[in-house]
Structure formats: structure tokens, C-alpha cells
């Protein structure tokens, strides 16, 4: 079996009765889901005023992530496409309300009513075209625009995602930005292959656009990307643009340290694993190598 369920079958077929039961009875998955949803809730940064919020859980499945929300006292509405998963959720008597629906068809919710959205390992399913009528770009667009509409001003949406490759990540991020969201990707444990987790953190409306939360790392250090440093490198001077093409060819020493650093910063912002900047960065190898 392929290691990614997205490659096996559409979600409503992959998560059949057997798979749904297996999913919820595996203590390992339960543990992972709980820790992921806890982290997602943390990233949501809900105001700490003790008032329960109305949250939305996209791809709630059997309600594992919703349980974390209930434990924190919030009311939630869960959406999932797999009836089998929802049946398990009903059996487990989760506290939130459940909806059977397809996020790619857009969310039928009134504008401005939801205080926050979490979604654990679900949005990458949108990148698949499981039926001939499916168009991932249109489905992503329908999802994000309807999501933007139903969120209250300043509300956040946190999606834990497993993008298959850079292109998928870009596709998702682009669709979100087009819908009007601000935000980006927070990577926890970026240096570990197994523990690495990506969270797409989106903000709707006016609340501090530039206050992205920081990712976690093993040594306790936060590893956020500071955009302010490389701003001067990104400006293009007019005189540069009008120079003849010939002169833009690389000189002997390659594209230079600045260029490499800028590219690395760019890749880091996309959430890719990039080696750290050291004194060797951009240096030429010795001839005898």
C-alpha cells in the first residue's frame, strides 16, 4: 500500500467502516491527532478571556481533534466527507455538531460567524482530482473563499497539512492568498524528517498581519524567518534592469554569496529544509577537490 492515503482512493472511499475504526482505535494515531490539534489550537491564538468560542473543524473525521477543542471548553462544528468516520464520531458521542460535506464544494455558512478554524491533515486532499468533474484549483478556490467569508474579522485558521511536494504547498498557499488571507507556513521541528509538521496559519481581516507565530524546534529555539534583513537585497535598481543581457551573465565566481543567501531564505520561507548559513556558504571549493 502506498504510504499516502491520498494516493490510494478518494477520502469518502478510503475511510470506509474498517479504516475508520482502525483509525480511531490506534492509540498512536489518537496521540498524534491530540498533539497536533493542541498545537493547532495554540497557533489559533484565541483571546484568553474565558469565553467559549465557536470553532470549525474541517475534516473532523471521528472527532479526535474536536475532543481537544471540547476539553478546552469550546463549541465546534465538524465537517467531513466520510460517512463512516462521522458514524464513529457519533458512537463516541463527541460534543460538537457534525456535518457531512465536501470542503471542495465550499462551506455553506453564514458570513462572519466563526471564531476560528482548525483542520488536521485534511487540506492536502483538495489537491487531488478524484472525479472527472474535480478541478483542484477551483476546489481550493471555492474552499478558501467560502472560508474567508464565514470567518469573523481577525479570526485565524490553522491547517496542519502534509503537502506531497513543493508544488502542492505552493498551490494551497496561493489559493489562500488569492482568497484574501494573510499568513504563511509555520514549520515545527524543521530539521527532523519524522517530527516535522507544517501548519498553514491564515489570518482573516485586519488583526496584525505581521505577527506570525514561531515554529518549534528540538533545542527549544524558535526558528522563524525574519524577512526584514534581506529586504535591501530584493530591491532592483532601475539601472540594473536596463543593462544589456550580456553583462548579467555570471562572472567566474558563480552567482555570489548574496544570491545564494537570498535563495536559501526564499526556500526557508516556503518551509523547505535548507542547510544553515555558515562561513562556508557560497564559498568556492578548492581546485584540488
Amino acid at each position, binding site marked *: 500500500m502506498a504510504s499516502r492515503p491520498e494516493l490510494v482512493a478518494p477520502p469518502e472511499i478510503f475511510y470506509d467502516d474498517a479504516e475508520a475504526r482502525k483509525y480511531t482505535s490506534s492509540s498512536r494515531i489518537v496521540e498524534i491527532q491530540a498533539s497536533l490539534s493542541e498545537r493547532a489550537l495554540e497557533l489559533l491564538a484565541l483571546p484568553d478571556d*474565558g*469565553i*467559549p468560542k*465557536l470553532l470549525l473543524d474541517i475534516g473532523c473525521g471521528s472527532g479526535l481533534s474536536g475532543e481537544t477543542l471540547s476539553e478546552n471548553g469550546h*463549541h465546534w*462544528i465538524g465537517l467531513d*466527507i466520510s*460517512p463512516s468516520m*462521522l*458514524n464513529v464520531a*457519533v458512537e463516541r458521542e463527541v*460534543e460538537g*455538531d*457534525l*456535518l*457531512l*460535506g*465536501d470542503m471542495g*464544494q*465550499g*462551506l*455553506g*455558512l*453564514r458570513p*462572519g*460567524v*466563526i471564531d476560528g478554524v482548525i483542520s488536521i491533515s485534511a487540506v492536502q486532499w483538495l489537491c487531488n482530482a478524484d*472525479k472527472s*468533474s474535480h478541478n483542484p484549483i477551483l476546489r481550493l478556490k*471555492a474552499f478558501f473563499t*467560502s472560508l474567508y467569508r*464565514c470567518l469573523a474579522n481577525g479570526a485565524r485558521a490553522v491547517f496542519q497539512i502534509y503537502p506531497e511536494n513543493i508544488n502542492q504547498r505552493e498551490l494551497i498557499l496561493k489559493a489562500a492568498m488569492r482568497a484574501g488571507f494573510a499568513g504563511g507556513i509555520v514549520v515545527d521541528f524543521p530539521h527532523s524528517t519524522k517530527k516535522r509538521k507544517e501548519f498553514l496559519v491564515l489570518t482573516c481581516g485586519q488583526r496584525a498581519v505581521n505577527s506570525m507565530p514561531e515554529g518549534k524546534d528540538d533545542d527549544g529555539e524558535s526558528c522563524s524567518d525574519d524577512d526584514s534583513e534581506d529586504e535591501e537585497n530584493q530591491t532592483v535598481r532601475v539601472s540594473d534592469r536596463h543593462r544589456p543581457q550580456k553583462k548579467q551573465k555570471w562572472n567566474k565566481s558563480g552567482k555570489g554569496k548574496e544570491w545564494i543567501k537570498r535563495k536559501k531564505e526564499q526556500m526557508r520561507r516556503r518551509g523547505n529544509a535548507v542547510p544553515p548559513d555558515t562561513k562556508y556558504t557560497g564559498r568556492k571549493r578548492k581546485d584540488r577537490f
Partner: protein
Amino acid sequence: MRLLTHNMLSSNIKGVEKGFPLRIEAEKVVEKPVEMNADFLRKMFEKVEWKAFLEASRSMGYAQLPEEVDSGMLESDEFLSRFHHALLELHLEEGALVCPETGRRFPVNKGIPNMLLHEDEV
């Protein structure tokens, strides 16, 4: 499904402009008591569309909500407890939601509304 969710839900069919509120066809309604939180109720009161909420609670067989409301009523414990009961304790277990514009029925089974659209409705 609670009335809280019903009040947020609208029909998502392509071309429908006013898909709210969905009409409730109740076959089975259950009550599940939950703890009351006045702060949450006050906050939700701002968001709830009262007319739709009133109609929905009536179609679920609960007729003790007042016709007209204002935010001053939130001080009264009696109103709060009724509001709480209708908003969070009444569950639509079996039945259907009907789109007000197209008349399309979204069936509700085991408390889960099936909001999946057909291909020609997307």
C-alpha cells in the same frame, strides 16, 4: 445537530442567493442537557439571526421563546435558560433541512445533515 449550527448553516447550491434559513422538517428531536455558560450565550446572541432561530425552535416543537428580543433581556436568567435550552440542548436527530430557494432537501440522519451537493449543484 443543534440549533446553534442550524443558525450558521445556509444552502450552498450554485446560483442560490438567499440560502438562509434552511427550513427544518423534524422527525425526531432529542434533548441532551449541557452546562450553561452565560458569557457564551451573550456572545452568541449577537450572532444569532433571531427570526430564523425562533422559527427553527418552533419547528422543533419548542415554543417558549419570545417573538421580539433586545440585548437587555440577556440580564434575565429565565430568558437565558430558555435561550440556552433552544440553542444548545435541542438536537435534530432525524429529519431534513430544506433550501428556502430551490426546495432541495438535505436529509439529516443520526443528527448529521448530509450537505453533499450533486455535481450539477456545484
